[in-house]
């Protein structure tokens, strides 16, 4: 009896050990001898679906290569990637933020793609957004120049959308797509469109509802201010022009009451209000196109209202696709990156899925002229990339802690509890301290 029991116990222990050890190893060669690549990415459901289709096509065209996809929720992605790097368990191909290029190159995480791209005569770099490629260049000192460490998955110009149907219903003249509103005009139009439609004394149709973290930039920049100076080492939010823009932003809620009040200002709310057709203006990214196509109203794009510079401004987001410096199959991995970012076949599928604007210039040109699909004024996206879009301030520095804290502390300004002028004065030294730390960290990582 005892013997039998002992055998069983030993087996269980062995099994447990095997299971524990198997968990540690990360093989990348699949059982049937084909080369297996791991691709880690993120995106909404429509995006995921589109990428799955493209990868399927890639596998068909490249027999012997299998792609294993790892998808995570957007807000979990960065953590998961960092954990994979720390744990030395990086996927072969992965998304990364342009702001991380310096850190990842300095620590040898990313593979230099330049030789592979130069070797491949199908890739014409001058047919891809220069802005997009430059985001992933780094020469060891300055970002924006030198070798290429990633290819832009896409560019995400953040445009302003408006509910055309609502304008027509209210008899308000449609905005001019070539001439941005001034700030005063913008308030006026919003006031006309903020309405109590069911007569309960509370408005249930609003002009706008901006999330401060993603929309304040448009107002600050168009007023001639910025978070950072030229050298990217000094925090410049204590500029009066900056305070003016921030105050304007807060006043939209507190003074002009054209956005849902404090109680209703959560992002989810404004997004859903827009989707329900209860909001006149709302920012639109290219990734929204597939979702917004099904909206029960007509919408279109226009430039953000312009501050004292008289010029509209907004940001361009981007994610790069990079290759791990430790990948077993660099050729195949780069091939996949190229397929997703520069090949006609891959790009066409992604653009048709309405999750991004084309990476290829000629394709973008043709795409923007198509006025049969929503939004009509796709040219606005292209104009942002070509003319006036900028990178988010956090992208220029080694980490974005100094930038994040600005938004962490901002609620009292939005609630009207303190003025923008006081806020920028109180916040600047705090941010400067963190920025100094980031600059110091960057210097250390370079040697």
């Amino acid at each position, binding site marked *: 009896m005892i013997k039998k029991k002992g055998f069983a*116990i*030993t087996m269980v222990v062995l099994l447990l050990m095997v299971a524990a050890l198997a968990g540690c190893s990360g093989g990348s060669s699949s059982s049937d001898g084909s080369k297996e690549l791991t691709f880690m990415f993120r995106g909404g459901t429509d995006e995921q679906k589109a990428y799955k289709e493209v990868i399927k096509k890639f596998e068909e065209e490249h027999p012997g290569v299998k792609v294993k996809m790892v998808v995570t929720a957007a807000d979990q992605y960065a953590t998961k990637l960092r954990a994979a790097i720390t744990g030395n368990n990086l996927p072969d191909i992965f998304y990364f933020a342009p702001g991380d290029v310096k850190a990842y190159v300095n*620590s040898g*995480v990313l593979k230099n793609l330049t030789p592979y791209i130069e070797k491949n005569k199908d890739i014409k770099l001058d047919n891809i957004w220069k802005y997009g490629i430059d985001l992933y260049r780094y020469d060891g000192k300055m970002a924006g120049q030198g070798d290429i460490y990633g290819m832009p998955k896409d560019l995400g110009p953040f445009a302003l959308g408006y509910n055309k149907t609502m304008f027509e219903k209210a008899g308000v003249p449609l905005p001019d797509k070539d001439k941005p509103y001034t700030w005063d005009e913008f308030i006026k139009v919003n006031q006309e469109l903020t309405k109590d439609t069911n007569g309960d004394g509370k408005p249930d149709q609003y002009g706008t509802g901006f999330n401060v973290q993603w929309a304040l930039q448009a107002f600050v920049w168009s007023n001639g201010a910025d978070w950072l100076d030229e050298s990217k080492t000094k925090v410049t939010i204590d500029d009066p022009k900056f305070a003016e823009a921030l105050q304007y932003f807060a006043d939209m809620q507190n003074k002009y009451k054209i956005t849902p009040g*404090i109680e209703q200002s959560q992002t989810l709310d404004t997004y859903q209000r827009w989707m329900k057709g209860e909001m006149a203006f709302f920012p639109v990214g290219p990734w929204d196109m597939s979702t917004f196509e099904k909206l029960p109203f007509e919408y279109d794009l226009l430039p953000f209202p312009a501050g004292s510079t008289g010029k509209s401004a907004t940001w361009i987001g981007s994610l790069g696709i990079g290759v791990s410096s430790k990948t077993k199959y660099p050729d195949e991995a780069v091939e996949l990156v190229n397929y997703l970012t520069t090949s006609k076949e891959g790009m066409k599928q992604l653009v048709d899925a309405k999750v991004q604007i084309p990476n290829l210039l000629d394709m973008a040109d043709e795409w923007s002229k198509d006025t049969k699909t929503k939004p009509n004024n796709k040219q606005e996206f292209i104009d942002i990339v070509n003319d006036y879009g900028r990178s988010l301030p956090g992208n220029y520095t080694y980490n974005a802690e100094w930038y994040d804290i600005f938004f*962490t502390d901002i*609620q009292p300004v939005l609630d009207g509890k303190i003025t923008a002028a006081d806020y920028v004065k109180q916040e600047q030294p705090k941010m400067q301290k963190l920025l100094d730390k980031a600059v110091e*960290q960057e210097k250390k990582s370079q040697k």
Partner: protein
Amino acid sequence: MITKSNLYRKEKVYGYLFILPPILGLLIFTLFPFVYSLYGSFTDWDGLGQMNFIGLDNFKDLFSDELFYKSMYNTLFLMLGIPIGLVLALLLALGLNRKIPGTTTFRVIYYIPVISSLAAVSIMWNWAYNGDYGLVNQFLEIFGIKGPNWLMDKDTVKPALILMTVWKGLGYTMLLYLAALQSVSRSYYEAAELDGASGFQMFRNITWPMVKPVTFFLVVTNIIGGSQIFTEMNIMTPTGGPEYSSASIVFYIWDKAFKNLQMGYASAMAMILGIFIFIVTLIQFKMNEKSSFDGD
């Protein structure tokens, strides 16, 4: 004699085999990361590249780090939920320990949050706390109360989190108390009744001391768990809440380590947290020793 010692030796081997898996697990998943992190706390490691030894600099920086104190304070503040949860759970357990119909149903109802995924529960409460269409404010509206925007206001975000964690842990605590209550021999109460003790006297002198080991266990585990609270705020206030008012210490560690490339600094904080938990637990064990009730 020889056979007996053989059997003994054999059993010893089995004994070791039995404890081998958890010990291996402890070595691989606890001790190794602990030592690694301990070393990391003396370096400027960014989590990516090489580690440079910088001595105690991280710890020195910690003392002047406003957010470190803030997140420590937040963590301690959220622990207010522990006594509240214990009292509520004990009351519930006392109620459900009576022979009245329907207790089983209630036990199940109170236990459901415990078995639900913390992430799912957090998302659900996130909706409930929404200032505009949230369930909580809609409920308050019935009484004519205009509820705040719970998670966006630095004054209400912590109470909101406490309410949720109490709700989530109630079933577990209640179940342990229930088990403890049921193991109290009826004979004590019968004797007390004969002596003419009131209900409250019985509770104070019999029930409370008898469930003390459970209370002790719960306080220790709750404080350890409470110091490490993370998922709730990570989902409900992903940026640490208005003015970082809902960020716990683990949230701050995670923020530094994975978002801001300061793994060494984060390790130093983790060490401080570890020492804190160790000391608090030690104190509790000492206190429990002193006033221990001999249950038999």
